[in-house]
């Protein structure tokens, strides 16, 4: 057993103890050489930090950046394949609280593979996650830079939105059948509010369901639809909604299809999503400035 530990982690003196986002103490190597990412957003962050050479395995649907697709797969983030992970001989696994089965993390640790868990819940904690992963992978400088950029872009949006006179009512549809929107405890809600809109589905339920009637009663002025669906499906959905021309969003032709990955993956691309949203919600602010 000790021999195994030696081979996997490296000389014990090169290790440090860190605290992950769930408050767990994790012993990691100072210089991790073989990292496995247990969620698509973590993969993105590692690439954004320029540390993809350390990355030996990713989960299915790790599709950004496109280069990640060619990496070995270890299952989906909700159904991880323990055998494949172990076969990659990782010295660090980075996991996400929301989705990764706890039992897998426990098994990995019982096999002496350190598991660092993150739990990004909003923009702030996403930035924190970037910093922490940067720290783990010895890319602190790059991490700082990334986070600074993110912060300044967010501030810019905030100041822009401050000038807006009015908060349009936004219905953000993430599920087509049944109709599902987003509650207060989601990234999307935060982004909508930051972008100067009013999330009609806000409330304690994270993914509330609506009947078509309920949506009509809410009378959204902007309807944003995201899903992993293709454009053809969007046209059908748009046609469905168009049967109610009295809805402001239909009347004013403010119904949009957007790529969900900008809005529900806790990565730096959330800021891209934010900027997208501002353009959709307050186009008037962009006529004046650039």
């Amino acid at each position, binding site marked *: 057993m000790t021999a195994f530990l030696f081979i996997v982690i490296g000389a014990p003196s090169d290790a440090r103890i860190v605290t992950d986002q769930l408050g767990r103490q994790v012993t990691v190597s100072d210089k991790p050489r073989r990292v496995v990412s247990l969620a698509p957003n973590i993969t993105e962050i590692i690439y954004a930090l320029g540390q993809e050479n350390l990355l030996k395995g990713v989960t299915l649907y790790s599709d950004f950046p496109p280069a990640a697709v060619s990496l070995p797969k270890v*299952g989906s983030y909700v159904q991880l394949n323990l055998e494949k992970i172990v076969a990659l001989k990782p010295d660090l696994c980075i996991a996400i609280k929301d989705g990764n089965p706890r039992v897998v993390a426990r098994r990995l640790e019982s096999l002496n593979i350190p598991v660092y868990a993150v739990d990004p819940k909003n923009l702030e904690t996403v930035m924190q996650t970037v910093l922490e992963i940067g720290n783990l992978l010895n890319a602190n400088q790059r991490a700082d830079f990334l986070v600074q950029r993110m912060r300044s872009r967010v501030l810019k949006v905030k100041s822009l939105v401050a000038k807006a006179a009015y908060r349009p009512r936004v219905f953000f549809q993430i599920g087509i059948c049944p109709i599902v929107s987003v509650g207060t405890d989601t990234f999307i809600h935060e982004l909508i509010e930051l972008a100067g809109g009013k999330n009609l589905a806000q409330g304690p339920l994270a993914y509330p369901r609506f009947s078509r009637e309920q949506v009509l009663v809410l009378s959204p002025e902007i309807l944003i639809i995201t899903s992993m669906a293709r454009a053809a499906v969007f046209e059908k959905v748009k046609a469905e909604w168009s049967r109610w021309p009295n809805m402001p969003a239909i009347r004013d032709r403010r119904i949009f299809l957007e790529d969900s990955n900008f809005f529900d993956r806790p990565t730096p691309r959330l800021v891209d999503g934010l900027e997208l949203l501002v353009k959709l919600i307050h186009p008037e602010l962009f006529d004046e400035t650039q």
Partner: protein
Amino acid sequence: MKPKTPLLLKRLSVISLSLLLVLLIAMFLGISMGSTTSGIKVVFQSLFKAKESDPMLDTIIWQIRFPRVLLATLVGAALSLGGLVFQALLRNPLAEPYILGISGGSAIGAIIGILIGFSKFPGVSLTAFAGSIAILLLILVMSSGQTILKKDALLLSGVMVNAFCAAVIMFLVSMTQDSRLHNIIFWLMGDLSMVDIGHVGILAAILCPCFILIFWFSNSMNLLLMGKEMAQTMGVNIKTVTVILLVATSFMVSATVSYCGLVGFVGLVVPHLLRLVFGPDHRVLVPACVLGGGAYLVFCDILARVLPEQGEMPAGVITAMIGAPLFIFLLKKTRR
């Protein structure tokens, strides 16, 4: 005193030994195959602690695959035996281990456990077990007053309760949000992954006494097939035997299902397969189900792990896809 006749014992030994061999081969294959390539040579090296053995592969073989193969053996044994006993008790060839509401009750219990946020063990397992026992008691109470259709009262109650539970399950599932939904669906399809050797030990400690107890009553099961009245005239204490078998089997199946969800079809097809090959004597069928059922599920689990490109299929899919044609083939062959 003449030695015991070789008639039954000889058959029993021959059949048990051959099935044991099959099981051992299955287990060996089970630990040599998986979603990463290993090969048989590697397993040998690992077994005999050769110097060339790779510790990473050792880990995969012994810490990941071996517990899973053991679990598949136990689960296959328990479910096959459960099907056999219920087919004898209810005198119905369509009986399977989940028939007395065990699937419905345990599923509801498991879903409640998952929704509360328990981890698989011990939380969800306990709620699943509690659910199945509760539903079983309900069915026993429901069918206790029946004098008409005595034989089928239990069966019918079980079928109705399972149907009701299925509706409740669909309702609960439709109300769940994303990630927890995944856990529920895996459980409903039967989940042999993420096995802990300690848990397997606990399950073995629970199941083995049940196997032995059921074997003890195997001759009684033969006599029961004559019908309750006739069996009584042969000296069988119907009430006692029925209750003991019912309780032991339900307990055995509930414990199994609580740990790994609803692995389907094994309990229906394996007893029939073995009966076609080895005949209807339960004294032979009970050990055959334990060994043969275990081997069968290990084989199916190997395929479930190895066939799909990504991820794994639920073992219950393979048991059906293989079991059904195999059974029809054997049926045709023996019809002469």
